[in-house]
């Protein structure tokens, strides 16, 4: 961080003396604290830097620089430090196998997002509208976060596998076993379970901010429950919906643990391909290239979706 032109320190020392002279009776700690505040009060630019510096620093070191490194690596042959090439991109974008995986990943992500958005919105709505135990219910919603993601996935393996918990229960009530593990359904269930709390929170936040009078006004003006939902409730909470959708869609598109553990080898997602390039095939440049393409695609999709959402509901995106 850019600190300490000499004069700054001198001036702070001066103001410290002045303050000490002003308030002779203040304790040492108080004096030092007010020294510090007055030091920053007199230097608004330094203050801004001190506040904004650390988070921006973190972003640069842990996000911008790695991304840049990945971009650089993606243009190299499998000999890092060697020659430059566009070959990684060409290989990826011309391979039907990889593109099929991307397409399947996209479809699965859309399904997961739609399910989580639907269930999550209903859940958030019921917590806001019909419940007096809001805090308790919200706590229950986020409770699974206190257990490790991996452990929760293994729990699902236990539930979904052949002769697992689910099949045993079905067996007890006389229904045929499903053997869901290593199917797409298992992956959908796993994702829905993992992301639901993540979507419920922004949905809940936007729904609590929704003025109940607006719902009544809509009904008063002749709109039934469905019309009221579509023309008032949903547009007024579209910001929360977009946030929740983004929070679910992005990590789903890139994830590799859930599909590996619950989908096995039948349900390869692009995140698994990338991971494989880095960890097994040791072709970092190729993995980096796929990562870059996926990042661009996801960002483009999100921009498009946000625009579309805003356009569908007029000025709704600007409220709240």
């Amino acid at each position, binding site marked *: 961080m850019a600190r300490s032109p000499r004069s700054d320190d001198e001036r702070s020392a001066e103001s410290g003396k002045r303050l000490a002279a002003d308030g002779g009776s203040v304790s040492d700690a108080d004096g030092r604290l007010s020294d510090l505040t007055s030091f920053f009060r007199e230097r608004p630019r330094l203050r801004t830097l001190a506040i904004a510096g650390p988070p921006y620093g973190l972003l640069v070191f842990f996000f911008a620089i790695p991304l840049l490194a990945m971009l650089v690596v993606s243009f190299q042959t499998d000999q890092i430090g060697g020659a430059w090439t566009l070959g990684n991109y060409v290989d990826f974008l011309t391979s039907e196998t990889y593109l099929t995986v991307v397409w399947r990943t996209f479809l699965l992500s859309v399904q997961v997002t739609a399910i989580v958005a639907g269930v999550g919105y209903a859940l958030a709505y019921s917590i806001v509208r019909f419940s007096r135990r809001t805090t308790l219910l919200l706590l229950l919603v986020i409770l699974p976060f206190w257990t490790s993601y991996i452990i929760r996935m293994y729990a699902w393996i236990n539930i979904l596998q052949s002769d697992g918990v689910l099949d045993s229960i079905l067996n007890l009530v006389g229904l045929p076993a499903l053997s869901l593990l290593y199917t797409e359904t298992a992956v959908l269930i796993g994702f829905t379970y993992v992301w639901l709390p993540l979507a419920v929170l922004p949905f809940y936040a936007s729904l609590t901010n929704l*003025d109940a*009078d*607006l719902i*009544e*006004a*809509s*009904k*008063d*003006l*002749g*709109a*039934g429950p469905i*019309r009221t939902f579509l*023309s*008032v409730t949903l*547009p*007024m909470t579209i910001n929360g919906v977009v946030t929740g959708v983004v929070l679910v869609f992005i990590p789903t598109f890139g994830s590799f643990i859930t599909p590996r553990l619950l989908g096995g080898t039948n349900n390869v997602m692009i995140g698994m391909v990338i991971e494989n390039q880095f960890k097994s095939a040791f072709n970092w440049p190729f993995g980096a290239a796929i990562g870059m393409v996926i990042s661009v695609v996801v960002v483009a999709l999100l921009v498009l979706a946000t625009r579309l959402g805003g356009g569908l*509901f*007029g*000025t*709704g995106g600007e*409220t709240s």
Partner: protein
Amino acid sequence: MSLLRVSGLTKEFGDLTAVDDVSFDIEDGEFVSILGPSGSGKSTVLRMVAGFEEPTEGEISLDDVEIVGSPPFERDVNMVFQDLALFPHLTVAENIGYGLKQSGVPADERRERTERMLEMVRLEGYGDRAPAELSGGEQQRVALARALVNEPALVLFDEPLSSLDRKLRQHMQSELQRIQLETDTTFLYVTHDQEVALAVSDRLVVLDDGEIQQVGTVEELYEAPASRFVADFIGDVNAVEGRVTAVDDGTIGLDVGDGEVSVPRDAAVEELAVDDAVDVCIRPFLMRAEPAESDRDAVDDANETFSTTGVVRSRSYQGSDSLYGIETDRWGRLSAEVRSASFDVDDRVAIAWDAADVHVYRREGGAPPSEDGGA
């Protein structure tokens, strides 16, 4: 036939009875206000008429059709909400056209009727703006237009003017009256503000603690309040403690401290018996005051006049009148509204009023007498 008929309306929230056996009628084209302090149940009555609350008991009929049980979107009633509840994600024109859209009015007609409404509330050219870009008074007009454009049988108002400053509120009051006449619509207005209620209404329903205190025209309520509560709530009133000493055909004899006065029989709305404790109420503007000559009562202490002397403790100038707070020798602090005379604080004055002008109410057990006369 009444347009709205409310009978035996009762609403209980758990143990609390918010509205207790309320009945009143509204004629077509009337401007009726429900007036009451906060917590009196007035908004609950309105919300039951709108359909947002289900009554525990009682009936509400609109145009002779029972509407209890039908959802708000099926009632031919529109409401102007306290906080207006304009849709922030829609333009002014879309807000006004919202109800028409719901009832399937074609876009052309919708535009035309919205335009006509904007004209009616004097907001021509504001159609494309967002509600947030409008001033408080303009937003009130939009809310009004949004309710009126559907041409409902009845428009409900839930204290929408309470957030405005006095000047704007008075202006909106006269606008409400103008628009009510122009559209020939029936208005039911809920408020705690007696000034607004008196200014705009044809008739008032006074509510306290969920129960109707009185229903009548503004004049009836002001000149013949049915209870001490109504007298206090509608306009200012002084109260003097007394005890009934005699009741006959034409008069009631009252012991009011050291002295007896007889008041007309019709000063009391309820049957009084000898020894009843009563409040004798008088409007400040019906009191006379003149400089007191030494300590002697300047006003003759005849049997049909209340009179006392006192010291001016406060004075508030009110344009043509002044309102004096007077510490009287006989009845504690009273307020008198006097036109011509001019007194200063600490002046000794003699005040009096006619027995014909008072109202007498039986004092409820334990209720302490009002010291400052509710001024």
